[in-house]
């Protein structure tokens, strides 16, 4: 295993994990940014861009509203890019096929992210008790330190999710590629289309927009017409 690549991936995972909730929320954590960034740093930018484009829409409709925790697509994007880049170096399969394979394997493991995220938030609740104690002992500065301590919890949760995605992927991906190699290569161009199609369906299913069907149908027909004129 390439430990430098793993270290870089872990750094991107922490950056994205923090950006997701705890710090900034500039949306570096979105797959369309996180995966290409990982790919770029690992020297396989195209694989990252492909993974980001395939994954972006799938869980975009799951909003981080109130106490709801959406599936951790950031760590899935980062972890799957790492898996695909390593797989590409080892097997020589086409990038598109490996991007699809690593996502199919990595996405179910990514569900663990919700568990770790919940755990981080539960641990953060303990900081509140310590904050009360700090106020009782007249240490207002301590409150600010305790608040920043929460960043460690979120960073640890990101790394834990990444570890599950990468470990699970490293066990399952070689087997998957070995048995499905031929069909994977043939099906790759279709899988490349299938992911965004399901993503669009998923987004549309959650949208309540006046005249939505009319707008969608109209722009689809006009779009096809414009593409036909090219």
């Amino acid at each position, binding site marked *: 295993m390439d430990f430098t690549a793993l270290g870089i991936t872990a750094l991107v995972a922490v950056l994205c994990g923090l950006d997701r909730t705890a710090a900034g929320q500039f949306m570096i954590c979105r797959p369309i940014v996180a995966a290409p960034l990982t790919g770029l740093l690992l020297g396989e930018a195209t694989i990252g861009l492909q993974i980001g*484009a395939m994954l972006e829409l799938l869980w975009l409709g799951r909003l981080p509203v109130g106490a709801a925790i959406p599936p951790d697509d950031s760590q899935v994007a980062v972890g799957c890019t790492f898996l695909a880049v390593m797989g590409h170096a080892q097997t020589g399969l086409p990038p598109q096929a490996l991007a699809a394979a690593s996502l199919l394997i990595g996405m179910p493991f990514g569900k663990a992210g919700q568990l770790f995220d919940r755990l981080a938030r539960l641990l953060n609740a303990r900081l509140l008790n310590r904050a009360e104690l700090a106020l009782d002992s007249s240490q207002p500065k301590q409150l600010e330190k305790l608040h920043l301590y929460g960043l460690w919890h979120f960073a640890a949760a990101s790394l834990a999710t990444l570890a599950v995605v990468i470990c699970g992927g490293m066990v399952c991906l070689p087997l998957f590629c070995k048995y499905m190699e031929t069909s994977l290569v043939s099906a790759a161009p*279709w899988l490349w289309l299938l992911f965004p199609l399901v993503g669009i369906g998923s987004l549309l299913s959650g949208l309540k927009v006046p005249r939505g069907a009319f707008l969608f149908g109209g722009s689809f027909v006009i779009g096809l017409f414009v593409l036909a004129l090219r």
Partner: protein
Amino acid sequence: MKLPRSVLLRVLSRSFLLQASWNYEQMQSLGLIYALGPAFRYYYRDAVLLAAYRRHLEYFNTHPYLATTVIGAVLKLEEQTQQGIDPGFTIKEFKSALVAPCAAMGDAFFWGAVRPVAAVFALLLAFHGSWWGPVSFLVLFNLPHIWFRLQGLIKGYGGGVRVVSLLQRWHLSDWAIYLKQSLVVLLGFFTAVLGATAAENLDAGLAWGCFAGPVVMALSVLLRRKVTPLLMIILLSLLLLSWYQLH
């Protein structure tokens, strides 16, 4: 005692870490204290500072991008209370009245509208391998993000309780609806692009791309019936792989 610009800048920069200790009990309460910290230390000392912190160590949850609006208004109210001006309600009452509408408007506008519109626009570029995809996503999303954070603090601190009418003037709920309509249009166009690519894969005429629209509509109906996207993608991918395995 008016806050200097340097203190307001520190409050603004700290607002980016509002959710660092997000938890299920009081959600962003410690984050609020962290953001208010530089201003409070300017206003208060010793026991009064402790009392101010204790006053704000309570449930607080709003949209992180609109939080600066609440923070700015809270700072103004703290300032007015010091000057002996009675706004007719407590800061606690004002905060609890403002956080929920800000959260609802922010969720609908940023998470439900700006983010998907920026994402679909970026995907239209990234799908053809363009690096402008991720770049345009970051720019399109973060322009309104940063603008609202900055304006929220300036207007919130400048206006105090009058910030409520400012929030109404922003018409965020209406903008969310317009953006969602644009999103549906972009999704329709993106589906057409995917349909055209599928027709190219098949080496068939573009007319075959017409199937993409109904396929997406059928998928959206299925997904509305509690089928998760993950399950659907795995099932459809396995079907596709089995087809190629058998042929």
